[in-house]
């Protein structure tokens, strides 16, 4: 599994690699936290998550948009997720720690998850996600 920030002039472009789809979604959430807070959270609290979408890209878009909502409204800095990915649905729980101004001030606010440039490809070894966060 890996998270890499790629060059993008205006926004934050991230590439995430993982062995399974479940790991890809979990890592994508960590990548979002890394951009927003400078690092992902630590385990401690949990929060349920369920989103739907027509295809894999829509599911990822809906999932990351939901995480953006949870982190902002619940003040949860997400560390990972335990998810089940079914036909057109992602459900499970996300883990994380409460936001603190002192510990989580090394990032930048993400306004939204862009559909432009969102792609998920699958080769024999792994899933690769490219996604752009509007910052």
């Amino acid at each position: 599994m890996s998270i890499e920030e790629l060059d993008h002039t205006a926004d934050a472009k991230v590439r995430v690699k993982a062995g399974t789809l479940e790991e890809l979604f979990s890592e994508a959430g960590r990548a979002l936290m890394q951009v927003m807070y400078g690092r992902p959270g630590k385990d401690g609290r949990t929060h349920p998550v369920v989103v739907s979408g027509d295809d894999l890209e829509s599911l990822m878009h809906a999932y990351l948009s939901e995480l953006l909502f949870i982190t902002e409204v619940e003040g949860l800095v997400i560390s990972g997720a335990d998810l089940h990915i079914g036909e057109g649905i992602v459900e499970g729980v996300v883990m994380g720690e409460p936001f603190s101004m002192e510990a989580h001030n090394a990032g930048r606010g993400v306004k939204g998850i862009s559909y432009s440039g969102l792609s998920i490809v699958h080769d024999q070894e792994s899933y690769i996600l490219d996604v752009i966060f509007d910052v």
Partner: protein
Amino acid sequence: MTMLPGVQRVGEFEWQVPVGYIPGMRVPGLFFLSEALAGTLEEGAVKQLANVATMPGIVRQSLAMPDIHWGYGFPIGGVAAFSLDEGVISPGGVGFDINCGVRLLATPLREGDLGKRRELVERLFGAIPTGVGGKSALRLSNRELDRMLLEGSSWAVREGYGIDEDIRMCEQEGCLKEADPAAVSQKARQRGMPQSGTLGSGNHFLEVQVVREVYHPEAARAFGISQGQVCIMIHCGSRGLGHQVCTDHLRILEAATKKYRITLPDRQLACAPIDSPEGRAYFGAMAASANYAWANRQVIMHYTRKVLEELYGVAYKDMHLVYDVAHNVAKMEEHLVGGTRMKVCVHRKGATRAFGPGAPDLPAAYSSVGQPVIIPGSMGSPSFLLNGTSGAMEKTFGSTCHGAGRVMSRTQAKKRLTGREIRDTLGKEGIIVKAPSDAAIADEAPEVYKPSMEVVRVVHEVGISRLVARFEPLGVIKG
């Protein structure tokens, strides 16, 4: 000079992207750029300009201002107008930060009056919540939020966050009448409630500035600006509420794109006919978010006035709002198209309205010179005040640039300079920077933007707005 293949020069600063550059273009693309800025142009941005030209009902051209850069959906700096009968409305032409915008507050203080400058910056930083997780002192009920979403600036003024005159000094008097709070989801409300009156993060800022040079004395007089005067520039938007509205309606409009059998080269351009249930719902929610942003900037300006009042004894009413402009918005406006006046839906994504003399919706005092156009520079670099022109009405649906435009990614920026180094360098130039973290400063170093002077020179030379004054920063608070 080198220009991307397929792009044709049609004027000293005008470049055309012909129909056929990508399949499905209904109109050509046109952007404004100087030779000096040509090297900053990204192929991805030109592709996005061409993508917009494929959208149904687009009128005349897909346009981009000289601060054009690669965004999502529309390029940043993009402007497009759509006919009301055949055209579409798209969140990709507005962006996540609906009505991200700028306002300029003029004070009676001169540069020499501004002692205690560090204390001023510290006090402003203390008074205005900033950064990721910054929470407001305002506690809004759902009902109050509804009024804010319906009324914009005038809600804030009525609640005691300003004076009546402020309302007239906002584009559209700080309120889009088409706002529909019912189209704003509960999620958007939950995000927006604790954030009204907060600055946010990223490129948002509040800057203490001095008018360093006046280029157009008549317009400067009309705007109440003179050399050596201390002003405050406030740059922020609709916070999580607007972001969530964009996310929610993007999803609805994606389904609508399929329903209305619209073919698009980019999913972020998801759209619906303007007069469809989905199009109307997005427009109503977007207008409500725009009103939230106007109220937000009004509240932040109120906090600023209070600090200046306490620290320097300046009377609240003696600090006048010069103007407030929106950068990311879609609006119904009347324009001359092919010799006929028609109502169109103008999308401005990282572009500023620049209505010329005599245009509707201008305060009486500005009617003879055109509207003030406020162009923030990047942190530590000059900002500009311009005036709208008849040239903008003819060429760009009354639009001009919105800022400098980035040229360097955030990852590159951080490799080059640390936040502390940038803060120290600016400090030596007499500019005090205060931010929640050094990382926020490193992201927004002056070097990561196109030179703002060159961007405004282009719009001035093209005649889509005219230079009025240049401002230099004295202190910055960053989100």
